């Protein structure tokens, strides 16, 4: 009866439940949901270095830091209490493509051949983690938002610049998938 709880949740359950947070945050305290700005708040709190972009009162955004801490806790709960040990389903052509690059193990959907402390010192691991992480931080702030801020919140509020940003997220991702990843994996 509770099998559904432990199986992966389908998009038509998780998507609407995620989207509900947008009106919920507006109703609770007039807040705009957005996660990547937390990276900015951490910089503002820890190393502002008199940079104007980081000299604002980050304490007013404490609620967002708590929200993100909750995401971390939620993932611990979901992984340890709500997940049955099962094999991870993968598209067969992606499986073949990754196998050609010696990527064969992906418990919980993350390839350990790519994302591990050991692979940090390989070229592909370094590019995917260190370079990729840097681009996520730089790009989201330059764009002024991320998938939650622009795609989910911005488009929900019919902000057309957020739609432009989201299209660019997708184009950048497709570009990296077809023009960068095949050469570094």
């Amino acid at each position: 009866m509770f099998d559904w709880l432990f199986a992966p949740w389908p998009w038509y359950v998780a998507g609407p439940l995620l989207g509900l947070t947008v009106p919920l945050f507006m109703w609770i305290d007039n807040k705009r949901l957005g996660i990547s700005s937390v990276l900015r708040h951490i910089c503002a709190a820890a190393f502002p270095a008199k940079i104007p972009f980081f000299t604002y009162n980050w304490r007013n955004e404490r609620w967002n830091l708590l929200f993100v801490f909750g995401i971390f806790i939620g993932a611990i709960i979901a992984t340890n209490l709500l997940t049955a040990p099962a094999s991870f389903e993968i598209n067969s052509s992606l499986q073949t493509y990754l196998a050609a690059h010696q990527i064969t193990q992906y418990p919980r959907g993350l390839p350990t051949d790519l994302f591990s402390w050991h692979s940090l010192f390989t070229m592909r691991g370094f590019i995917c983690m260190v370079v990729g992480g840097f681009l996520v931080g730089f790009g989201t702030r330059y764009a002024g938002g991320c998938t939650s801020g622009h795609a989910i919140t911005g488009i929900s509020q019919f902000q057309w610049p957020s739609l432009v940003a989201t299209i660019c997220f997708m184009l950048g991702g497709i570009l990296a998938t077809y023009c960068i990843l095949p050469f570094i994996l």
Partner: protein
Amino acid sequence: MQKNSVLQDTDIEINTDPCANPADTAPLPFSLALTFLIAGIYFGVLLTKAQVISWIRIQEMFHFQSFHMYGVIGSAIITGAIGVQVLKARKQQTITKQAITIRKVDFQKGQIVGGLIFGIGWALTGACPGPIFAIIGSGYSVFIVILVSALAGTWVYGRLRNRLPH
């Protein structure tokens, strides 16, 4: 609008006025703090259970091999949009009886250039910022490296901001 800078704040995710006196810290009642913490737990469980934190699912999306991620993001947007329209139609106030305002997002070049840069990072790491925190929670400690790198990227953007086209 920031001190020492004519460049307007382009961050759509900042909820407080960046020009406000830094000494003015709005109080955060315990009930509200707890609400946002619980909302975060809810969000984290959903991201994990819907496999949004999976590099494989993100790759399937960018290879057009699976509808899953399009379904998650698309249905989240549709639900969010309906919710926002309901709030507007009802002229709903917040719990504390404040008017709900929707601040307009202005177009700027960073949404294109920064968007493309973030997209590349999204495909490489398989993680947008929310999932980074969720992946660390799900036990992949190496994602702390990605988090530190993302913080470095954010900081470097802040440092170079005045020299970048907006």
